[in-house]
């Protein structure tokens, strides 16, 4: 009997009932296996999506073909969303039987993450915000720009507006839901730029060192001596405010990620396994992308998650100061700016958009904290 066979014998077989439950409804299989947290996450998003689709089809906002573009996109996005959740739950169940004792670094990290209560709460919040941004036209009770002139500055509940209306009679809840698109789009876009550019610069800089590396590092030092928001304000006042400009400015400032990746690469490249890899005749490219990059991936992921939160706050701050996304596009910062003039009469205008920011950033920070705990035991030893 070969070694492979022995392992095969040790594996438990996937029970037929779990298999059917998992196929039947995402999350049910997890419940049966006693994995309630994962089951809750999966099934709650499925239920949310079903509710949205039922409502969307019954009031005609969602259509399979034709109709409004928003509605068609939302329909097909929901279908993909369903398939995604369904496949995810099924794969998770299967994997838990296939690789109970083994699994690589990422499998173990994912398993550790599922046991991490904080991280799951964070993931739930983040997924909820992403979901709201994706399906904004279906989730939002009103159009974000629709003015209800009979109900301007109405308190929550009045005129069918759950969170009240602003000075133009626009529904606050709908504007918050649409505002998540700006927050995630701009904040996330900037962070993506940080990650790609910063990661690449850090990777190449840490590996090759040399003149380009030292130039980039000096440039980052100079940037580091100008506060984030002041740098952004200056550049935006020169080039004009707009989505692309903000993404680029924050993307460039956030290159600070390069420093962390660089120091990570500097330590990884001295490891014995890189030397071993070199001895097998691997070239620079192979060493960099097959060995060094995966080994610095964890810190890149943690840095990125924490960075999204910072970027969302900065984007809101810029909009609050009038240097952000141009009105009437709904954004949380701009909503707070207009709320300030109505503070004495309309508290809801100031409270709810801010809560949306705090909730979203809190979710990302929870996620980032937990990822750090799970992915980087070295760092988590120094406190959660």
């Amino acid at each position, binding site marked *: 009997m070969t070694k492979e066979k022995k392992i095969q014998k040790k594996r438990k077989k996937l029970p037929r009932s779990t298999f059917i439950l998992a196929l039947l409804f995402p999350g049910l299989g997890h419940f049966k296996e006693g994995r309630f947290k994962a089951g809750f996450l999966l099934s709650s998003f499925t239920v949310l999506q079903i509710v949205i689709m039922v409502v969307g089809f019954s009031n005609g906002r969602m259509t399979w073909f034709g109709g409004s573009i928003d509605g068609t996109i939302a329909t097909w996005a929901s279908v993909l969303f369903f398939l995604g959740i369904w496949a995810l739950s099924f794969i998770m169940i299967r994997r838990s039987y296939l690789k109970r004792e083994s699994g690589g670094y990422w499998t173990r990290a994912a398993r550790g993450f599922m046991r991490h209560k904080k991280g799951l709460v964070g993931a739930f919040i983040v997924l909820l915000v992403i979901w709201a941004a994706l399906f904004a036209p279906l989730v939002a009770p009103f159009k974000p720009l629709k003015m209800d002139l009979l109900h301007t500055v109405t308190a929550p509940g009045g005129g069918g507006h759950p969170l009240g209306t602003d000075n133009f009679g626009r529904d606050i809840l709908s504007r918050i839901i649409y505002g998540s698109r700006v927050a995630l789009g701009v904040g996330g876009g900037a962070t993506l730029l940080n990650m790609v550019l910063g990661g690449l610069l850090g990777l190449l800089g840490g590996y090759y060192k040399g003149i380009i590396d030292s130039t980039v590092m000096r440039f980052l030092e*100079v940037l580091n*001596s100008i506060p984030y928001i002041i740098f952004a304000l200056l550049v935006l006042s020169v080039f004009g405010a707009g989505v692309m400009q903000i993404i680029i400015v924050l993307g460039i400032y956030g290159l600070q990620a390069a420093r962390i990746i660089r120091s990570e690469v500097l330590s990884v490249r001295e490891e014995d396994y890189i030397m071993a890899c070199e001895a097998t005749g691997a070239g620079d490219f192979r060493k960099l992308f097959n060995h060094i990059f995966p080994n610095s991936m964890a810190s890149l992921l943690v840095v990125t998650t924490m960075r999204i939160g910072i970027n969302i706050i900065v984007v*809101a*701050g810029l909009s609050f100061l009038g240097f952000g996304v141009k009105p009437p596009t709904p954004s949380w910062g701009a909503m707070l700016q207009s709320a*300030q003039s109505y*503070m004495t009469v309309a508290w809801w205008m100031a409270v709810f958009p*801010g809560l949306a920011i*705090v909730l979203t950033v809190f979710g990302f920070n929870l996620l980032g904290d937990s990822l750090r705990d799970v992915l980087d035991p070295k760092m988590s030893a*120094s406190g*959660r």
Partner: protein
Amino acid sequence: MTSYIIRRLGQIVLVLFIVSILIFSLLQLAPGDPATVLAGPGTSVEELQAIREDLGLNKPIHMQYVTFVKKLFNGTLKSYAYKQPVISIIAERFPATLELGLFAIILATIVSIPAGIISAIWQDTTADYTVTTVALLGISTPVFWTALMLMLLLSIQLDALPVSGRGATLWGFSIFTLDGLRHIVIPMIALSSVQMAMNTRLTRSSMLEVLREDYITTARSKGLKENVVILGHAFRNAVLPVMTNIGMMVGTMVAGAVLTETTTAWPGLGRLMISSINRRDFAVIFALTLLISFGYVVSYLIVDILYAYADPRITYD
């Protein structure tokens, strides 16, 4: 040590030089002619020409830079909007920001250090969970929203504090008068909130790391009182990263001040920055950015020097 400080000062000058070039070229790219902004509407062509001459705007760009910097240092660079020397405009507003920033740092420090220590020594208790959750919420909340909420609660709903502004001052400081004290509460709490949260998290993780060390076990087994172990042995060793963070606060406070001062109408440098950007007052923007960068890099230097004093193992050469 002396040679290290001199070398660092040299680096600071170099960094500030590059920053100044960066800002100057950025401002050159901005739309709008400074001379027209400075002169205001209804100025004749001759007068405009005279202003250009005076500002050196008709010279090549590198000469313009030299004149700009020269004028900044001999105090004759005038604000485009206020028609006063930039130096005096900044000097007039500096005490307000200094006071706000200083008290925000003090508040952040005296709250965060005990909170961090408590949360570390009682790890995984309700107290710890409360502190860590509140701290995580703190770093997730934008300062301007904190300011708005405090205004809503304390000024509008409870009518306990004035909504905005600075109030009466004595010798340029508002803490010496009751009216001024009432005005500073909201911006001070708002500005310190994020740093308070960050410093709490840092103190906690730093303490947890130290509490795991062998010398803490030794200290305990010697029969020392727990207070002595925590404060005398653990905290003293955990203080270094915390101190770095407090030093860094100087810089982050400036950035936070831009938002806090705008929200609460605090007449400091942050608000000056925003109004200057809106008015395209290049002279003030240039001087202010350089000043802020100077504050930033000098605070880094001070932290590094203090490091060497606090920890004899660290030497610079």
